[in-house]
């Protein structure tokens, strides 16, 4: 019996790894195939003649590097701002009694479920009026808004677990309010804030609907949007290997974040959703 479940666990483990990693391996393998091999049709999994030439040509493509810069800038700024606003709100929700708390939480939940496409029309219209169309702030503002709910939920779940009495204990021991906050509360709250930041960054890095609707040139277009428009010279023969190369490049930051912070991400995803 014990033996049998052990084997089952190994099979399950292998299945999960194959499920998660096979498509990633596939896109990496495709990125190593020379363009000529792909346009001739290469239905096998591994490249016949692996080369890094695609990486050179995609990194020399000014539009792609510009989109990469846009993606980084927009995602970073949206993350920082969203986390600041969410931290303030989550502190109030976790620690203070106020009327309307439930309304704020329900509103956040409602916005988390909001169909973003519904806003494309009115935002398109409004952004052109305000001069926000095709600019960084034009994407940063909605990205902040749509990540606030997740950040608020995650952070308020984290903040509820912090032993706040320690702040007073430190003050009794002679620390000033600021010292008590800096030396006691900040280190306790930092992991939660950091987790919320990762989840927010993932959202902004991934977002597509608004990125294609509210931009028109490379001055604000992010990588997902740029990739969707990247057809190459022959529209009937899309540059598979170049698109795969671009895919690998934008996946690298995701891989690094996941490798470094997997435990935090899992804690954040589940604490926000299950404990509420």
């Amino acid at each position, binding site marked *: 019996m014990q033996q049998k479940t052990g084997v089952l666990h190994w099979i399950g483990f292998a299945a*999960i790894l194959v499920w998660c990693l096979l498509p990633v391996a596939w896109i990496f393998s495709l990125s190593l195939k020379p363009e000529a091999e792909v346009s001739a049709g290469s239905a096998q999994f591994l490249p016949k003649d692996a080369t890094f030439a695609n990486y050179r040509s995609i990194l020399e493509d000014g539009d792609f590097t510009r989109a990469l810069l846009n993606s980084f800038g927009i995602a970073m700024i949206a993350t920082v701002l969203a986390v600041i606003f969410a931290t303030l709100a989550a502190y109030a929700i976790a620690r203070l009694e106020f009327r309307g708390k439930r309304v704020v939480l329900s509103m956040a939940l409602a916005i988390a*479920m909001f*169909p*973003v496409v519904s806003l494309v029309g*009115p935002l398109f219209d409004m952004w052109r009026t305000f001069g926000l169309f095709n600019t960084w702030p034009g994407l940063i503002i909605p990205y902040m808004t749509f990540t606030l709910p997740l950040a608020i939920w995650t952070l308020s779940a984290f903040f509820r677990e912090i032993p706040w009495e320690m702040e007073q204990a430190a003050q009794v021991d002679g620390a000033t309010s600021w010292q008590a906050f800096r030396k006691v509360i900040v280190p306790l709250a930092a992991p939660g804030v950091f987790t919320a930041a990762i989840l927010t960054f993932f959202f902004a890095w991934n977002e597509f609907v608004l990125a294609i*609707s509210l931009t028109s040139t490379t001055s604000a277009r992010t990588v997902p949007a740029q990739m969707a428009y990247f057809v190459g010279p022959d529209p009937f023969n899309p540059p598979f290997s170049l698109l795969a190369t671009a895919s690998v490049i934008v996946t690298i930051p995701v891989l690094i974040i996941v490798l470094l912070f997997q435990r935090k991400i899992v804690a954040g995803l589940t604490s926000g959703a299950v404990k509420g």
Partner: protein
Amino acid sequence: MTTTVATAATKPAKPAATDRSVAENRLAWKLVAPAVVLMLLVTAWPMLQALYLSLFRYRLTTPDEREFVGLANYWTALTDGLFWQDLWNTVLIMLVTVAVELVIGFAFAMVMHRIIFARGVMRTSILIPYGIITVVSAFAWQFAFSLSNGFVNGWFSWLPGIGENTNWFGDHWHAMFAIMVAEIWKTTPFMALLLLAGLSQISEDMLEAAKVDGATWWQRLWKVILPNMRAAIMVAVLFRALDAFRIFDNIFVMTRGAQETESSSFLTYRQVIEQFQLGMGSALSVLLFLSVLLLAFLIVKLFKVDLASARGEG
């Protein structure tokens, strides 16, 4: 805001309102205000704008011909076969993907819960599909299913219905299948993680007791594990169903709506951004918003009924 708080606090109905609680209330609202104002400005206001614009015939290429048409846009949408076809596609994708994800996600959660080795490796792998950009995942699967450059036909040609020359984007059902595979691959990990959290809250003692009482594995699953995970399952289904209902990225990349694979979100996008039909597009936006609202309401209601009846039985 300050005045409303002060007057509310002096009302006799709330005798417990001390200076301290008034101050606390005020501080809390100051902290919450930026987030609330931002959320209202970027969602509620444009939504009202959409409601207003939906009553006009308004095309951006000819802005001077804007004309009030009442509910005509809604009538046009609701009597058009395309609207229903797209809604049906969306609902079908949602039902199939969420059901499949629930089963596979639960299996993954069971493995992750029980396994004692390489937990870090597994957690890292499971987060990769979750973290990867949807557009990237859509490209990966589009290429995998591609006729000339994909490995799917070669690997799975031994299955009935799949051959060397199966064109996955050549007809409706094949294309829908490819889209669903991409969606399921990307979002099953999220489902699995939420279910894992629910699974880890079940007490081992209870499972042990059931085992001692002679319950089979199957009985333990249905009588102990699943009923005790109901809250986690509900949250996972609610989040994933509403997410799947908004499907857009995968369809945009994989088929651009060809072979009648368009979803409701895609239809709305196409009206507004590609055809500049702001009036018609706004009507579709409002309809989409109402569908999501109705869906959320239905899921919450459905599970509440379930909860009540389960309690009645117990």
